[in-house]
């Protein structure tokens, strides 16, 4: 995501906040002092290029007014509004300022690209998150149920007899056409269940390895299987999932940094809660969550790789 780089600069941000604070301060109903009555009108070209002018400011009365005059009028009214304290308790102003600060918090967390060692540590902490499921590989001969399961079982038994002691390729001389084909490899339990159902999946796990075994039943037929190997569930090497880990690290780090910054800001205030006594647990739970995040807890939840 391309971010506007100037917004990332803390100095500029602080200047903006300063200006805002100053403005707010001024508004507390103080009479206008002499210095505040000066309105410096920018050059015409600049006014014309400003967003307010481009999109038109219908709030300012007088559609045919000259753009510069409209700008001046808007500025006068804006300053008067501030002087009268009209921004106080204004929901929209409050929400906008809160939003600006939320995004400011996000961008204070200017993240550098992760170092490998950081990703290694992050990966080690969240290894289970990247676990790959167990998988099975086998070759099969399928017998259609078109003449009923008795007939299919009989033909399967006949073929199994002849396949004893033979390799997996010998299977191609037996069975019926099957849309799925003979070889199923690296299939997870989920995929096996999708193809043949849970019963087949369980039975397959008990089939002998490297010999023809069966028969196994599925929704669609009777199967003889030559189970080749079983890949146990494993945690991959970092390099196999590097991109995913890097992405998760960025997300996680950003969230942690945001909460850290918030905690710093919140510490400047003494927060007195009217509901302190009626709902102390809720408030404390919130603080605890923020603190945990700020302390760099695991925080990686919900989404498995």
């Amino acid at each position: 995501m391309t971010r506007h780089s100037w917004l990332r600069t803390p100095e500029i941000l602080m200047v903006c906040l300063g200006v805002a604070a100053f403005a707010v301060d001024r508004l507390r109903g103080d009479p206008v002092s002499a210095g505040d009555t000066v309105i410096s009108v920018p050059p015409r070209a600049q006014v014309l290029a400003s967003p307010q002018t481009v999109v038109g400011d219908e709030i300012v009365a007088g559609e045919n007014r000259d753009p510069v005059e409209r700008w001046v009028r808007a500025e006068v009214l804006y300053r008067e509004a501030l002087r009268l304290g009209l921004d106080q308790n204004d929901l929209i102003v409050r929400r906008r300022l809160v939003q600006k600060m939320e995004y400011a918090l996000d961008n204070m967390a200017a993240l550098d690209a992760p170092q490998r060692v950081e990703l290694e540590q992050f990966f080690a902490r969240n290894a289970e998150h990247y676990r790959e499921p167990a998988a099975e590989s086998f070759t099969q001969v399928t017998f259609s149920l078109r003449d009923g399961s008795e007939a299919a079982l009989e033909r399967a038994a006949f073929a199994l007899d002849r396949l004893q002691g033979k390799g997996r390729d010998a299977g191609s001389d037996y069975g019926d056409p099957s849309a799925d084909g003979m070889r199923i490899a690296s299939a997870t339990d989920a995929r096996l269940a999708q193809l043949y159902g849970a019963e087949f999946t369980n039975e397959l796990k008990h089939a002998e390895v490297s010999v023809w075994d069966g028969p196994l039943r599925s929704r669609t037929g009777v199967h003889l299987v030559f189970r080749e190997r079983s890949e146990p569930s494993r945690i991959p090497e970092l390099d196999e999932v590097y991109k995913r880990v890097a992405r998760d690290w960025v997300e996680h780090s950003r969230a942690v940094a945001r909460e850290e910054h918030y905690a710093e800001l919140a510490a400047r205030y003494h927060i007195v809660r009217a509901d302190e006594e009626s709902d102390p647990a809720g408030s404390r739970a919130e603080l605890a969550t923020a603190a945990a995040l700020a302390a760099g807890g695991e925080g990686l939840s919900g989404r498995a790789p």
Partner: protein
Amino acid sequence: MTRPLRFSGPRPQWLLVMAVMSIAACGSSVPSQAPPGASPQPTPGQVAECGDYAPTRNAYFGDLHVHTANSFDAYLFGNHMNNPEVAYDFAQGRQIQLNDNTAGQRFVQLRRPLDFAAVTDHSEYLGEVRICTDAEQGGLGYYDPLCAEFRVNRPQDNLAFLVWGVPLTQDDPSRLPMCTYADCATAARSVWEETSRITDSRNQPCRFTAFNAYEYSPSTAGSRLHRNIVFRSSAVPEVPVSYFEAPEPIELFNQLNAACDAEEGCEYLSIPHNSNLSHGRLLWADPERFSDPQYVADLREIAQVNPVLEMMQIKGNSECKLGLGTTDEECEFEQLRDKPLCCDPANGITENCTEKLPSLPFVDEVSCHEVCPNDRPDYDTRSPDNSTGCVATHDFVRGAFLKGMQAQQQLGFNPLRFSLIASTDNHNAASGDVDEQGNPGAPYGWEGGHGGQDDDPEERLDVLTNIGRITNPGGLAGVWADQNTRESLYASLRRGEVFATSGTRMRVRLFAGDYPADLCALPDAQMKALAYQRGVPMGADARLTADGGAPAFALQVMADEQPLQRLQIVKLSVDTAGDAHEKVYDLATFAPVADVDDDCTIHYKAATETRMSACMLWHDPDFDSTQTASYYLRAFEDASCRWTGHMCAALRRTGDVDCAATPDHACCPTSSSPVKAVVQERAWSSPIWYTPESGS
């Protein structure tokens, strides 16, 4: 007949906008002429890298059409949170959360994960949505009044849909005013970059394929002319080409060809969809312009890059329409325009000739669908609503194929040749959420696909909207590929060895060639080797046998969870005089259709065990080697509860609906307009084509 845009009333904003999306002008999608007899060789430059590599190919199921919160309409529907990450999470079997409904939180999860998926957010407004929802990136644009309204829009509101949708209905669309001072292009680039980065990181060769993709979404004059653009690899253009840059499809493809650097590995294909809502415009090759070399060259170019059609999705099925050139009653399956055709003696339609009664409470709600004048596109009418506007025969696959084959006789190529897939077009980022009975966490069956518009059961029962009971969860794309990688699946899409299902994971294959009579009695490996060696798979061109005889058709079907009920071949042909013919052949009926109770219990009328798979050899009894023809397989499951059936059963079970107290509720058998509660899920193969020249 001019229908004004509706600006008020409780009418579904969805109609307005989605209808608002359709494609402009000439819009003919012409799939390329597939290479004859694609034999099961590895794709050039590709290695057998996966454990399940099979030269005779495996069936993989996925969804190539899903929207996330980055799509303006999905956001307006109330999907504010579910981004591309969430779409892939869901596709891979993880539980995700949808927007809350009146009953509280909603969670959904696939019972069976997908093998592949593509996030296809609308390229139109990709940047604007980011500007409106991200204060930091949006800068001043974030405070634009349109953005302020966009953020607080409720799914039931019409206004925002109109404001954002209407530009997409204009011939010469212009961006929203905010883009004069906010950098919409840069924002779009960054969203696209982010989506690609996520997609690339979620692509796991051999396990799960994630395609870079987006949706090009013109709705010129309310005709839906949308296409999904799918990229082969991680090499993609810097920014997706949208309707704003390319108001005509040929401009889209010219610009994509320029932006997509083949030397860097950028390659794409385009998948048109919802021809059923295009008023004759999407799948159109105008015979009156065949003498114009530029027009024909454009048709050829469009054909080259549009090999596949999304024939079914949430907004209906585009196979065929009863009365529109066919008497096939199965054509009424999941029609979004489900009303009968209006009286039109010129087209042989003599029913509904009494005065058209408007249906209440909307006076302009149609009670029948007009056939487009002369069966040509309607360029004069604005039809901003899914339920309005005319229908043409070529809005449906059968009519398009016939017109394409007729054009082929003049042009030497078929400008309307497609292989077939289905997908969802789900706007909740719930990729492949097609289970009628719902899934873990969805107590009332399928949870809808349009955020806050259909999150409550009663909204999903609505008859007045196209988002209610008339929609379906959408379908799945089936792909026969030698392994689950981008390269392999993409090659299958290009080749056309793909199929469409209404949501079931039934596997269907169709071959045509010179086959021995005992093909289906052979062991699996031998059968498949022969099928490829002596013939071609679906998507390809059949040839006459060595002695000039008709090709034989071999079909293979494996049921999903329901047993098979019936198999058919649909033949479409054009004779030497240029006349079009359609015939549906019943190949096998395994059982009468089962009865389904109100509580969704199924009473089968024949044993189920013996009809879980089928292999058959079929000869066309009417084969004529001088006729151009296409053949596709249609395979039916036995009956089961439609999503509406599951939902009503749940509502009655929980007492939410009490038929004694409210006998006219749509879930009650006593209702004057009860829901359609039962469905026969089905799968369609891609066609195999025959042209007289190819046999000589």
